[in-house]
């Protein structure tokens, strides 16, 4: 309907806008008033990212029509900090680790502000109640809870009342690493200033939307766009006929995705047309006017049926619907089982889950006059996006500039080039205008790339002492309709199992299967969490069978430092046993395991991960993929995986650090700044990070495989060292010593051993500039040559270093309803030197809450036609702050000689112990093992009923 004028008060100022009355207040604030601190994560009242105060009360602006707001008082996140001075609560968020990706932060801070206005010293339960409507996918709520609890520590005047700054410790080895500084982007995120991709507005910008296939499997007969094209406001419409035949994807051997489906559709929601129009509402209306005729084919949704004879074929090129088959055998399996004292076989089934970062994917594309594509994308992998855009657009990589604004979480869901990355560029080309495309929450589900559901058949043999003799794993992965990362996923599902325990003999058969569902991809822990869950459960079952304590059986098999695994992975530092001993002690395991009343349970699970993949996803050098011949694989990196430039300002007072590493909320900008500062010998506060723009920052492969701390860390610290090396001769001259004697620390330079004889760091930098011009250092990192064995797939799982961790979980199960309350987690990790301990604990807390949800409540469900039944955050449940357990996160002493300052990873390794620990605790509480995820209350009750029935009919049970 026609627009009307609405006048209301925002943050103390009267505002008048013209808008359609049913337009949401969220859209009006963001698009018309440019107050983009208010976020949209779901559009349905489920996530709370859009929370503002109206007349003093928090509400969801996505469900508030502007027509009802006339004359009311609105406070948004932008209205809290006055003249840039953060409120005490905002300071507490910054200092207590309440912020990671920051996408939930504005809504969270608004809700908490309202709580504290009413109730200055709330109880923990009151805080949880006040924040139930605000979902956070990153922090696990720990830092948020601490921020609200300790808010009164942070006075308005900037001082901290209760938390005295610790005195500078001169004896510390490092000044800037192994220390918890606040995130470098925290102040922007807590005030709503941080710009995410959907917040970007360019002059003359228009909008785009994709039309998704309404059927799961079918042949496109006709697409008639005439009615849509005639709709006023529509700028252009593209269909499969208008786009290149070049296929894209992730694994170079399996590019199989079309930009827009040309003849066949393979899952519901698969893009078949792209519309550009003057606004999103017009786009949506245009989509509804496109006539699509699709001849339906029988969809195949169950992977076990997909491999049966006569099943419908998803892709002609994947015979029998098998996308990848992995077959690996190490050691003498037969002998191992023959020598076993006890062998147990079990089947486990995982669940199909989604990363569900709070920020849905977004892209904004525009073309410069010289033919350079400028693409803003909420991506974890700017370089691979650049690479894939070059591939599909047939232009050199150098003609593509990828800008990665703040990213509201990824967890693997943003690790590939998305249809909106590509289509925004194509629509922009076609219209000559910048195009913004933002996924709805539902579209993030139909785009998919979530965790593969795995069907696992495991067999484990141990000797009398509980030592593992042989392990056999057969896994069927439900891949969905396209390859995406799936080839690597299928390999990872096998390759990481031997990193935790000494396995003398191991066989792995993996099959990735195509089905008519959205493609699965890489999600936190890539391919490993489900097999790790199953293995840890099986190990616990075996321990029970032979009457051994679960911690003990692990200690007897645990990996040791400096070991080559049975599948040729080179383990360096390893403090796995220490993590086991620590969790046992801290959780009071010995007094609890087997001694708790019915309904209460305790369980253990362990896990670890790579600190960066040993090899790049594509082979060869950085070059347009069409032009290069298929390169022969060499066991070394062709080009450096992480690259950094440190540029010192002309007055020596600031350093700009450039590296294309994607901070997606995990905090990589902060740890990289810390490591660079350490090498430079200046405080981290003097460094500004420029990681977001491929025109400025050299290539880093991105945020996946937990690689940035180790790989990016080396690159930035080498860049810092390069700067200091250049400064040394100038410092030596000023100090009257030999250049080789010069050291840099505390923003000074001095002769080694004589810290009282100093010259200011910036003075030396100025001297350098006066003489030689720009003071710049570069650094890069290549993984060691020769990683991995010589068998097929040996590269997957290789890494410079491996992390290890153990977690103990305590639960309370309502045996009448099956409801599980995960009460407590005790977690210890070996992540090498923690560069920023607060960030490490934040990753652990986030992983525990995310993976607990994965274990007990998250599950994408499909109907028989292939529709997702819960493509939203009320059907697909994420843990709220009320569901989150109490968490203790501890670290063991560890130093990795291949890592910068001894560091390894934490982001994904922290996920792996969780699933098994929760499952074990539930089994311990209920007496029944649930072997398929998620472990819902209903499954628990069914299992209890079955157990009871078989107890009542013992003869029957005995025959089974």
């Amino acid at each position, binding site marked *: 309907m026609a627009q009307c004028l609405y006048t209301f008060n925002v943050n103390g100022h009267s505002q008048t806008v013209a808008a359609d009355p*049913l337009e949401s207040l969220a859209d009006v604030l963001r698009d018309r008033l440019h107050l983009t601190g208010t976020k949209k994560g779901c559009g*349905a*009242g489920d996530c709370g990212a859009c929370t503002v105060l109206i007349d003093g009360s928090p*509400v969801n602006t996505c469900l508030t029509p502007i027509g*009802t707001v006339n004359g009311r008082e609105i406070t948004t996140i932008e209205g809290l900090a006055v003249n840039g001075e953060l409120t005490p609560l905002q300071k507490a968020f910054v200092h207590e680790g309440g912020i990671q990706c920051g996408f939930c932060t504005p809504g969270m801070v608004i809700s908490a502000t309202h709580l504290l206005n009413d109730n200055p010293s709330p109880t923990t339960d009151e805080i949880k109640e006040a924040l139930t409507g605000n979902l956070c996918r990153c922090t696990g709520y720990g830092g948020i809870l601490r921020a609200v609890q300790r808010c009164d520590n942070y006075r308005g005047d900037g001082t901290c009342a209760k938390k005295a700054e610790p005195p500078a410790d001169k004896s510390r080895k490092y000044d800037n690493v192994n220390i918890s500084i606040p995130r470098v982007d925290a102040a922007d995120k807590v005030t709503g200033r941080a710009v995410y991709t959907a917040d970007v507005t360019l002059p003359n910008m228009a909008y785009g939307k994709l039309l998704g296939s309404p059927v799961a499997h079918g042949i496109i007969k006709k697409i008639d766009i005439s009615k849509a094209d005639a709709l006023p406001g529509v700028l252009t419409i593209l269909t499969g006929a208008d786009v290149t035949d070049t296929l894209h994807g992730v694994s170079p051997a399996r590019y199989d995705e079309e930009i827009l489906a040309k003849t066949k559709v393979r899952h519901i929601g698969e893009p078949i047309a792209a519309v550009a129009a003057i606004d999103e509402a017009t786009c949506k209306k245009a989509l509804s006017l496109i006539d699509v005729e699709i001849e339906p084919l029988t969809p195949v949704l169950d992977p076990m049926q997909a491999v049966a004879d006569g099943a419908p074929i998803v892709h002609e090129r994947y015979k029998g619907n098998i996308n990848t088959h992995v077959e690996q055998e190490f050691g003498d399996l037969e002998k191992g089982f023959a020598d076993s004292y006890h062998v147990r076989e079990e089947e486990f089934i995982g669940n199909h889950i989604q990363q569900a970062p709070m920020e849905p994917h977004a892209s904004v594309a525009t073309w410069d006059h010289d033919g350079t594509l400028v693409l803003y994308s909420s991506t974890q992998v700017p370089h691979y996006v650049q690479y894939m855009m070059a591939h599909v657009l047939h232009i050199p990589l150098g003609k593509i500039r990828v800008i990665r604004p703040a990213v509201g979480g990824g967890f693997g869901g943003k690790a590939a080039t998305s249809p909106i990355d590509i289509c925004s560029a194509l629509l922009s080309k076609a219209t000559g205008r910048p195009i913004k495309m933002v996924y709805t929450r539902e579209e993030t589900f139909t785009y998919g790339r979530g965790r593969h559901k795995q069907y696992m058949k495991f067999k484990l043999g141990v000797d009398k002492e509980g030592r593992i003799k042989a392990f056999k794993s057969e896994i069927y992965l439900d891949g969905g309709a396209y390859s995406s990362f799936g080839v690597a996923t299928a390999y990872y599902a096998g390759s990481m199992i031997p990193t935790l325990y000494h396995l003398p003999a191991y066989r792995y058969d993996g099959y990735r299967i195509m089905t008519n569902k959205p493609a699965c991809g890489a999600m936190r822990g890539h391919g490993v969490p489900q097999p790790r869950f199953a293995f840890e459960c099986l190990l616990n079952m075996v321990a029970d069978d032979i009457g051994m304590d679960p911690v003990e059986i692990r200690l007897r098999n645990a990996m040791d430092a400096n070991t080559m695994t049975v599948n040729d992975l080179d383990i360096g530092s390893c403090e796995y046993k220490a993590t086991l001993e620590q969790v046992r002690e801290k959780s009071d395991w010995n007094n609890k395991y087997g001694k708790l009343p019915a309904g209460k349970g305790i369980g253990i699970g362990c896990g670890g991960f790579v600190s960066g993949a040993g090899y790049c996803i594509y082979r060869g050098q950085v070059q347009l993929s069409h032009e290069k011949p298929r390169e022969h694989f060499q066991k070394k990196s062709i080009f450096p995986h992480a690259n950094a430039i440190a540029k010192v300002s002309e007055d020596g007072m600031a350093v700009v650090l450039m590296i294309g590493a994607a901070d997606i909320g995990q905090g990589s900008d902060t740890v990289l700044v810390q490591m660079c500062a350490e090498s430079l010998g200046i405080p981290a506060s003097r460094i500004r990070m420029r990681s977001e723009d491929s025109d400025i920052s050299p290539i880093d492969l991105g945020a996946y495989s937990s690689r940035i701390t180790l790989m990016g860390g080396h690159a930035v610290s080498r860049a810092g060292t390069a700067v200091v090396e250049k400064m040394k001769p100038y410092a030596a001259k000023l100090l009257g010593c030999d250049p080789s004697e010069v050291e840099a620390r505390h923003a000074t330079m001095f002769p080694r051993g004589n810290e009282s004889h100093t010259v200011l760091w910036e003075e030396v930098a100025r001297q350098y500039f006066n003489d030689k011009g720009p003071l710049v250092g570069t650094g890069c990192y290549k993984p060691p040559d020769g990683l991995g064995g010589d068998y097929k797939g040996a590269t997957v799982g290789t890494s410079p270093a491996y992390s290890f961790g153990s977690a103990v979980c305590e639960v309370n199960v309502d045996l009448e309803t099956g409801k599980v309350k995960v009460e407590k987690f005790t977690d210890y990790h070996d992540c090498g030197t923690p560069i920023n301990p607060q960030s490490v604990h934040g990753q652990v807390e986030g992983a525990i809450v995310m993976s607990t949800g994965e274990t007990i409540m998250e599950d994408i*469900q499909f109907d028989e036609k292939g529709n997702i039944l819960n493509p939203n955050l009320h059907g697909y449940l994420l843990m*709220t702050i009320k569901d989150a357990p109490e968490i203790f996160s501890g670290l063991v002493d560890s130093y990795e000689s291949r890592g910068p300052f001894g560091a390894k990873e934490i982001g994904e390794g922290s996920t792996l112990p969780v699933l098994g620990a929760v499952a074990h605790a539930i089994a311990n509480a209920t007496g029944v093992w649930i072997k398929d995820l998620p472990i819902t209350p209903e499954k628990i009750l069914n299992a209890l009923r079955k157990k009871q029935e078989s107890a009542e009919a013992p003869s029957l049970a005995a025959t089974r």
Partner: protein
Amino acid sequence: MHITDVEFHQAASLDEALDLKQRFGAEAHVLAGGTDLLVELATGRTTTKHVISLSALDGLKQMAVLDDGSLAIGSLVTIAQLCNSPLISGKFTPIRETTIQMATPQIRNMATIGGNIAGAVPCADTPPILICMGATVGIQSADGHRTVPLREMFAGPRQTALKPNEIITSVTVPAQPDNSAAAYERFALRDGNAIPVAGVAGSITVGDAKQITQACITLASVAPIPRVVDDAGQDLVGKTIDEAVVDHIAEMCSNNAQPICDVRGSDDYRRRLVTVLTRRCLYRLRDMIGN
């Protein structure tokens, strides 16, 4: 459904709202808190030509305890008001105990009691407890006013006894007898912000010897409409709550449920939940009465 195609009307008074509803009838939806309607419109599950916003009708945002001790709740009273109002005390406390379990603080600030009823969603939380407490609904149209017992309001999922020109203006909960108790037990898959998989509301009034003189059990989320288990209510009369009675009633309620199977749980599971929740509800009622 495209929101841009919908005509929006901001009613300045109840009379104007009623006029508009008279004019557009079934082609118009009234907008209260919008927490249900806007999600429905955005997903296309509901379509409409006209939206009549009631947000300016301050008269419907009031609540009062009347002379006869009954509680009159304007249809635009929010769930948050029901959580916080000092009027929701004494025998009306079960209302608050229900509403504090609903949704999120933000949604509660927007969502209204009228919308919770008129939406007629099978999993709505307030109808079962209000039915057990004997609530009636005040309905207004250009033709006049009528009062309907809440239990007669529901015709099916998203279907009510409202005529196309009618608007709910109030919900009235009668004064509860001294020796009575009401309680609601719900089960959800998450501790925060989750709609119920199943719920059981119950109320009893007892005589001097604690034997039940009147009882009502209403199930949530396990039938197309809030399911009043009349047999259970009648059966309870004359009894005191003991284990045998509880088991019997729980089984009866479970048999009376007509649950569907969806993403939140199977029909079988829901039935079992009804058994458990009925038990818990009855034991709680016994405790409240003071056995």
